[in-house]
C-alpha cells in the first residue's frame, strides 16, 4: 500500500508476461514481417497475407506471424525474418510472392534456408551460433585484441563457420555494468547471453564450453543485459546493423508497435515506474543533464537544462510537446520511431511531463504520416486503458494526458514557436524569441518542446543512468544519434551510431560506400538548414560542434551522400528552392532574401551568372543568417554558403566558363554521338522525344543540337556508351 507505483508496475508486467506466455512463441516458428510506411510501400502487407495463406494451407499450428515496425533497412525491404526456436534467425531481403513460397516450402517446411536471398548475404553458410564482440570505444581500448585471439583459437582447433561465426559489433552500451575492469563484452546468440571477458583463459573457457559443448559459462555472464539485446539477437549478424548502437531505435523491428504487452515485456514503462516511485522530478532532470542528452531536433540544446528551465517557472500550467513535424527532405527518423516503437515515445513524454510538472502533452505529427498518427493514437488509447495516462498515473497521483495535433504541410512548423502557433490553430508563423517557450509557450504558459528522438532516449537513460548514456557519446554530447542515410549510397536506411562516430564510418562501413562505384564528393547533413561536408573531411567526428564548424549542422539527422555526378550549385539550388518554398513569409530577409538567392542560383545554373553573383549570394546569405526572425530563415543560406566555401571552383566554372563540371546543369551541357562507338542500332533515335537524332540503320547517328532539348533519354538508353555528355 505504501508503494503503489511498484505494485502497479508489477501487475502490469504480470499482465504482459501472461499475455506473452499465452502466445507460447518460444516453441513456435516466428515469421516476422515489417510493418511501417516504407515496408508497406515495398509490399510487406501482401507478403504477410501470403504467408498467412501458406500457414493455413499447411495446417501447422506452430507457425505464427509477428508484425513489427521498421528496422530502417530501407533499400532491402520488405524484410522477412524467420526464427526457428533454438536457431539463429534468418533474414530475407526484398521478399516477393515467389520468395514467400520458397521460404515457406524450403526453409520452414524443409529446414533449408534459401541462402541466396538472405539479407546482406556474405556467405552461404548458416552458422549454428554467433559471437558478437563489442568494439565500442571502451571495449576497444588498449589491451589484448580478444576478437583476433578468438579467431586464431578457432583456426587452431579447426572450428568452422558452420559451428560459430565471429562478428565485430559497435558499442552495446554495456559499459555501465563493467565495473571498471578492462574487459570486452561478447554477445552469444542465439542464447542471448552477454559475456564479459577479461583474459585469455576466459576466452578459452568460452570456446570450449559454450561453443563446443553448448554449455553456458555462468562465471563469465555479465550482470546486466545490453539495452538493445533483442535487437542484436535478431539483427546482429548483419553488417549494416552491427556497426550501429541502437538505443533510440532498440525496439524498432523488434516489437509489435501495436502491442503494449510486448513493449512492457521489453522493460517498457520500467523507467516511468521508477521515476514516479521516486517522487522526485529533479532526479529525472539531473539524470538527463548527466547524460548530456542534447536536443535531437537539431538545436542541440541540453534537454536536462530545458526541462529544468520549465520546471522553475512560477506558472504551474505547463505543457510538453513532442515535435514530430519531421520536414527535412530526406529525413525519416521520426516517422520510423513513431511507427515502430510508439510506446517508447509515449513513455518518454509522460516522464517529461512529470519532470516539468505538465498537465497536458501534445504530439504534433505531420498529416503526411497517417500510420504514425494511427499508431501513436493506439498507444495513447492503450495507455489510457491501462492507467498509464489520465488521472493518477500508475497510482502515483500524477495526472497527465496526451493528445495528437496534426501538422498540415509546413516545414516551418518544426520551429518551436511556429509549432506552438499551429497547435493553437493559427498560421504556423514563428514569434520573436525571447521569450522562449519554456517561459511563455503554448497559450502563454511554460512549454517544453522536444524532438521525437529526444523522447526516444529518455526511458533508456533513466533505466541505465545518465552516466552510462554520457559514456557512449563524446565529451560534449552523450549517447547516439539516428541518421537517415540516403542519396548515392549502397545501403540506405536508418543508422544509429554513437556521437563521435566518423562520417566515413557511417557512409562506408554502414552505408557500404557510394553506389555505382562512383567517387564520394560530399556528405550533406542537416537538410535544408545544413551544409556540405566535402569528401576530404569525411573523417570528421559526427557531433554538433564539429559539423557547425564545417559550415553544416547536425540537424534532425538527414544525411545525403553525394557523388561526383552531383553538381553542388544544383544541389544548393535544390535546397534553396525548398527553403524559399517553405518560408512562412513573415519576416523580410527570409521571404525576400531566399527568393533573390534562388534567382541568382537559377541564373548561375542557366549559364547566365555574373561575376558579382558570388558576392551577392554571400551578402544576401549573411543577411538572412543575421536578421531573419527564426531558425529556418537564419539557417536557409547554409547550403549556399557551405557549398561556396568548399566548392567555390564549381561556382566559378559555372559563372566564368559556363561549364558544369558534374555535367548536371542542363543548360550547360549537350549530347554528342561518338561516331566510332555508334553501331547505328537506332535505339536513341526511337527514344528521342523531339526526333532530333538522325542516321541510317547501322550507321553512326547525329544529334541536331538546335532541336535537342537535352532530356538525356539517348544517353540513358544507349547500350554502347556511344553518347557523350559534354
Amino acid at each position, binding site marked *: 500500500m505504501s508503494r503503489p507505483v511498484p505494485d502497479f508496475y508489477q501487475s502490469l508486467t504480470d499482465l504482459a508476461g501472461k499475455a506473452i506466455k499465452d502466445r507460447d512463441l518460444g516453441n513456435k516458428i516466428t515469421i516476422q514481417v515489417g510493418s511501417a*510506411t516504407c515496408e508497406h*510501400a515495398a509490399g510487406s502487407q501482401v507478403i504477410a497475407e501470403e504467408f498467412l495463406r501458406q500457414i493455413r494451407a499447411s495446417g501447422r499450428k506452430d507457425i505464427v506471424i509477428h508484425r513489427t515496425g521498421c528496422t530502417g533497412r*530501407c533499400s532491402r525491404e520488405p524484410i522477412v525474418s524467420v526464427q526457428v526456436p533454438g536457431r539463429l534467425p534468418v533474414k530475407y531481403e526484398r521478399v516477393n510472392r515467389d520468395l514467400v513460397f520458397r521460404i515457406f516450402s524450403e526453409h520452414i517446411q524443409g529446414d533449408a534456408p534459401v541462402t541466396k536471398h538472405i539479407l546482406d548475404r556474405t556467405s552461404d553458410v548458416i552458422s549454428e551460433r554467433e559471437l558478437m564482440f563489442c568494439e565500442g570505444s571502451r571495449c576497444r581500448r588498449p589491451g589484448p585484441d580478444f576478437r583476433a585471439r578468438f579467431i586464431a583459437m578457432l583456426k587452431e582447433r579447426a572450428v568452422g563457420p558452420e559451428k560459430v561465426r565471429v562478428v565485430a559489433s559497435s558499442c552495446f552500451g554495456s559499459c555501465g555494468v563493467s565495473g571498471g575492469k578492462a574487459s570486452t563484452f561478447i554477445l552469444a546468440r542465439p542464447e542471448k547471453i552477454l559475456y564479459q571477458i577479461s583474459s585469455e583463459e576466459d576466452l578459452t573457457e568460452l570456446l570450449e564450453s559454450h561453443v563446443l559443448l553448448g554449455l553456458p559459462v555462468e562465471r563469465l555472464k555479465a550482470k546486466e543485459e545490453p539495452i538493445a539485446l533483442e535487437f542484436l539477437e535478431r539483427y546482429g549478424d548483419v553488417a549494416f546493423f552491427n556497426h550501429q548502437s541502437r538505443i533510440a531505435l532498440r525496439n524498432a523491428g523488434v516489437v509489435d508497435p501495436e502491442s503494449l504487452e510486448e513493449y512492457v515485456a521489453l522493460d517498457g514503462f520500467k523507467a516511468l515506474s521508477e521515476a514516479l516511485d521516486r517522487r522526485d522530478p529533479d532526479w529525472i532532470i539531473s539524470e538527463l543533464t548527466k547524460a548530456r542528452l542534447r536536443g535531437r531536433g537539431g538545436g542541440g540544446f541540453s534537454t536536462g537544462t530545458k526541462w529544468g528551465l520549465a520546471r522553475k517557472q512560477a506558472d504551474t500550467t505547463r505543457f510538453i510537446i513532442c515535435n514530430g513535424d519531421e520536414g527535412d*527532405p530526406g*529525413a525519416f527518423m521520426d516517422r520510423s520511431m513513431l511507427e515502430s516503437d510508439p510506446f517508447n515515445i509515449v513513455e518518454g513524454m509522460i516522464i517529461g511531463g512529470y519532470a516539468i510538472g505538465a498537465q497536458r502533452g501534445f504530439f504534433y505529427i505531420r498529416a503526411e504520416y497517417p500510420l504514425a498518427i494511427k499508431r501513436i493514437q493506439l498507444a495513447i488509447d492503450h495507455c489510457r486503458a491501462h492507467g498509464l495516462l489520465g488521472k493518477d498515473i500508475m497510482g502515483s497521483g500524477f495526472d497527465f494526458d496526451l493528445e495528437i495535433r496534426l501538422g*498540415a*504541410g509546413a516545414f516551418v512548423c518544426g520551429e518551436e514557436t511556429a509549432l506552438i502557433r499551429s497547435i*493553437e*490553430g493559427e498560421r504556423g508563423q514563428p514569434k520573436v524569441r525571447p521569450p522562449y517557450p519554456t517561459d511563455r509557450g503554448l497559450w502563454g504558459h511554460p512549454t517544453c518542446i522536444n524532438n521525437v528522438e529526444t523522447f526516444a532516449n529518455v526511458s533508456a537513460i533513466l533505466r541505465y543512468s545518465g552516466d552510462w548514456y554520457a559514456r557512449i557519446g563524446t565529451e560534449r554530447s552523450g549517447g547516439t544519434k539516428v541518421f537517415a542515410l540516403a542519396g548515392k549510397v549502397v545501403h*540506405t536506411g536508418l543508422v544509429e551510431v554513437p556521437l563521435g562516430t566518423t562520417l566515413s564510418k557511417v557512409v562506408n562501413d554502414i552505408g557500404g560506400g557510394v553506389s555505382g562505384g562512383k567517387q564520394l564528393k560530399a556528405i550533406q547533413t542537416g537538410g535544408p538548414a545544413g551544409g556540405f561536408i566535402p569528401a576530404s573531411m569525411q573523417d570528421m567526428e559526427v557531433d554538433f560542434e564539429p559539423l557547425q564548424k564545417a559550415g553544416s549542422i547536425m540537424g534532425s539527422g538527414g544525411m545525403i551522400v553525394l557523388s561526383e555526378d552531383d553538381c553542388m550549385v544544383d544541389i544548393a539550388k535544390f535546397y534553396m528552392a525548398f527553403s524559399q518554398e517553405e518560408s512562412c513569409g513573415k519576416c523580410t530577409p527570409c521571404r525576400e532574401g531566399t527568393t533573390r538567392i534562388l534567382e541568382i542560383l537559377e541564373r548561375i545554373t542557366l549559364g547566365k551568372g555574373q561575376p558579382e553573383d558570388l558576392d551577392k549570394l554571400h551578402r544576401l546569405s549573411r543577411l538572412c543568417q543575421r536578421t531573419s526572425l527564426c531558425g529556418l530563415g537564419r539557417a536557409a543560406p547554409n547550403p549556399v554558403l557551405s557549398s561556396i566555401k568548399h566548392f567555390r571552383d564549381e561556382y566559378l566554372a559555372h559563372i566564368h566558363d559556363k561549364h558544369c563540371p558534374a555535367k548536371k546543369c542542363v543548360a550547360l551541357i549537350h549530347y554528342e554521338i561518338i561516331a566510332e562507338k555508334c553501331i547505328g542500332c537506332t535505339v536513341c533515335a526511337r527514344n528521342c522525344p523531339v526526333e532530333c537524332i538522325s542516321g541510317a540503320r547501322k550507321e553512326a547517328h547525329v544529334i541536331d543540337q538546335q532541336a535537342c532539348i537535352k532530356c538525356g533519354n539517348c544517353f540513358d538508353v544507349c547500350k554502347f556508351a556511344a553518347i557523350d555528355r559534354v
Partner: protein
Amino acid sequence: MSACCSSTDNWPELERGYRAMLPEDILAFIDENRQMDRSESMLIATLHMIQGHYGHLGPGHLEAVAQLMQVPLAKVTGVATFYHYFRLQPRGKYLINVCLGTACYVKGAEKVAQKLMDELGIRYGETSKDGIFSLESTRCVGTCGLAPVIMIGDEVHGPLTPGQVPTLLDSYLARAAEDLAAASAPEAR
C-alpha cells in the same frame, strides 16, 4: 419607432444553413470542441476532417467552419492557404504526389515527374481531363530508401523509372474503370 426585437437576428437562419453544409460527424466534432476551452485551436483538426470527407476545402465549407466554430473567416482561409496539405480545389480520383525530397531529387524524380506530365498532359496542381488524376509535388514522404518515389493515393511506388510510368498509370485507370463498372452494375441489373 423600432421594430420588435428578435426579428433582426439572422443567426438562427444562418446557423441552419451552415449546419446543412457539413456532415453529422464533423458537426458533432465542432459542437464537442465548442464546449472546451480554446476550441479555436481545433481549427486545423476540423479542416483535416473536412478535407478527409470531401477531398478538398470548398468556400462553403470554410464559411460554415468559421461560423460554427466562431473563428473569423479570414483566419480560416488564412490558415487553409498557409498549409500546403490543404487543397482548395476539388481533385481527381487519384492524387499523384511526386516526392521531391533530396533523395528522390538526386535519383531523378524530375524525370519521373516530367514523364507523368507528358503522359497526363497536366502540370503540378492540375487535374487530368477525365478527372481521374491530379498531380502534385510533395516534400519528402519519408521512404528515401525507395527513391525516386511517387505516391498515388495512399500507396507509395518506387524506385520508379520514367519508363515504368505508363504501365503504372494504366493500372490505376483499370482500377478506376472497375470501380465505375462496380458502381453502375447494380443499377444495370
